[in-house]
């Protein structure tokens, strides 16, 4: 029997109805509450503080609570993130572990390089993890999709990818920068280019893309952006700082500072902290003017400061870790610490991994050293802090560190 025209129209109508229904629901909630111990992205929050005010880690010494080293393809150097009872680590793929035991929940090899950032999706029942690579940004299913029997493979992990045709930087492929998620959008530099872009977490589509420096042949070499109060702040080679509107990507202000080799910015209530090789600035977030400038005897080229409870924790990469007053830039304390680090802070303790091989803990109030821990493998990533536990990526393994009894 020949299918009738009416039947065909009915089927077409069903498809249209379903699609339109999709569009209506698309206006759903874009954000949800974050459990207290979640560490949803690199440097904890969109501002890039590295400080979780509700988490608490070991204080007087650590021992390995568990170690996961049975995933053969995993090689990681970047910090993990923690969402509920799942720890996600990236290193030649995405690895999801039970935060309590270290048991593998799922793994998916892929070209993923940066720490992931959790974004809520209005079209999916599960969160999407935005992960950077030197080729672009990937949107991954935080639940791992469907496990395929016998093969151990996962189906439906990769939801979207935003690949860029990039020329790379002068010395090779662009280093991937961790995406930042804020107010339901993903903000990230375009690898190897001079652009910052905002992506839709649902499908990875570009919401806006803004060129920061028009005359840069090899890309601006951006650091991790910081997002706060409707502005995206970026620092880039050699000495540029810019603020863009999160809604449109339009430049709010842009300036050059009188020092090269800028490090990732941190957005705070007091202003925008901009570190560089020798200088730390606090800039007015509204117009970029200097609120204070502090010169250190430093050679910081790879570090990222943390900000917590009115203090900026920054290393000079020579011999000290400094705590600066966020309001004035004055030194509150200085502790012996020679090397690059990206410290994190929780419950009055600063955790700083020196040059990727040794974890130090300092009292955030006094700078007194509380403990040091050296794992057998290097490098050790910057840790994230959960409920009394530190989590870190340690080359071929992922480890959890708990208070030593």
């Amino acid at each position, binding site marked *: 029997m020949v299918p009738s025209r009416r039947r065909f129209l009915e089927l077409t109508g*069903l498809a249209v109805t379903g*699609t339109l229904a*999709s569009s209506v629901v698309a206006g759903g909630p874009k954000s949800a509450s974050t459990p207290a111990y979640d560490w949803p992205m690199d440097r904890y929050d969109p501002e890039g503080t590295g400080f979780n005010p509700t988490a608490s880690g070991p204080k007087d010494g650590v021992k390995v609570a568990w170690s996961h080293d049975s995933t053969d393809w995993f090689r990681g150097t970047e910090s993990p993130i923690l969402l509920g009872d799942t720890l996600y680590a990236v290193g030649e793929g995405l690895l999801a572990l039970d935060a309590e035991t270290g048991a593998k929940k799922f793994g998916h090899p892929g070209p993923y390089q940066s720490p992931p950032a959790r974004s809520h999706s209005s079209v999916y029942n599960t969160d999407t993890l935005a992960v950077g690579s030197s080729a672009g940004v990937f949107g991954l299913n935080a639940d791992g999709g469907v496990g395929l029997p016998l093969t151990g493979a996962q189906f439906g992990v990769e939801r979207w990818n935003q690949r860029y045709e990039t020329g790379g930087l002068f010395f090779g492929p662009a280093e991937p920068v961790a995406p930042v998620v804020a107010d339901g959008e993903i903000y990230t530099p375009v690898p190897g280019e001079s652009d910052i872009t905002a992506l839709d977490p649902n499908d990875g589509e570009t919401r806006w893309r803004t060129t920061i420096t028009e005359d840069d042949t090899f890309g601006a070499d951006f650091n991790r952006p910081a997002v706060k109060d409707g502005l995206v702040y970026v620092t880039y080679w050699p000495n540029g700082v810019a603020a863009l509107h999160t809604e449109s990507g339009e430049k709010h202000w842009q300036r050059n500072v009188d020092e090269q080799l800028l490090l990732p910015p941190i957005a705070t209530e007091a202003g925008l902290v901009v570190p560089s090789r020798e200088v730390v600035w606090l800039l007015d977030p509204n117009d970029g003017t200097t609120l204070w400038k502090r010169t250190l005897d430093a050679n910081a080229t790879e570090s990222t400061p943390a900000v917590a409870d009115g203090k900026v924790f920054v290393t000079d990469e020579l011999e000290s870790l400094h705590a600066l007053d966020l309001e004035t830039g004055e030194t509150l304390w200085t502790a012996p610490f020679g090397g690059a680090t990206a410290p994190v802070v929780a419950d009055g303790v600063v955790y700083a991994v020196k040059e990727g091989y040794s974890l130090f803990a300092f009292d955030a109030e006094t700078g007194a050293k509380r403990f040091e821990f050296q794992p057998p493998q290097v490098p050790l990533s910057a840790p994230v802090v959960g409920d009394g536990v530190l989590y870190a990526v340690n080359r071929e393994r992922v480890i959890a560190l708990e208070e030593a009894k």
Partner: protein
Amino acid sequence: MTSKREHGAADTEPTASESRRWLSTPVILDAVKRHVSRDPGLVVPFMVVGLFVAFADWVRMRDPIPLSASDGLSQTFSIQYSVFPMGTARTARRAAVFVDLRLPYLVGGLTLELLAVLAAGVAGWLTITRALGVERCRSSLARYLGGMSTVTILPWMLGSPSIDVGSLVLGALLFLTFTLVLVRVFLVPGFLAADEGFKVALWKSVRASSGIRMTLFWLLSLFGLASWGLAQIPIAGGLLSTAVVGPVHAISLAVVVRQTRIENATERDG
């Protein structure tokens, strides 16, 4: 020997006994042209499907479900081989993006994908049966749609079988092997539409392709290339690819299948 002319074909078409010689690519395309001139209604089904493909492209571009460009469209050069007559859409969705979708999106998205396949299947079946002048029956439609679903939906769900080959020689070898298989099964949709069962259609396709493998190879390549090339055209690519390549492919199948049937009848009579 019986000199039996193909029903409805032009007067210049040769007898069955000359079939292996005259079934060249230009002759088949010429026969397609004459079919369409005589019966313009043959292009209507794929015209409608082309509009639906363009609509589906439009919806995919605007809804919030992740999207990918059609496999071939991201390449500098591609041949979009297809055993069953259809075009190339400008947009596509991998099956993986449907995992964990919220229900309205899942229903809407899957319906769109399934309708696109179903519509192309019905259009192909309508066009082939009309060009063949055979009686339409539910069983042939079911078999045609079943066959088409198998070769389109299953690979879609399992992942697109695309291979990136660095070596030119290896690439050429794989290409030849792949096209040899395709040539042998090229006529399966035509025989399915003519109400043959799956096994018989496959067997007849393999048998009927003997002697005209180069002709079928050029047809396949031509359709694949045209499908890809037309789909490159912005906005209207999906419509053009489907509305042009679909009917030509379907009527070509009808031309060859009909000629095979004439040959078989001649052999039986002889």
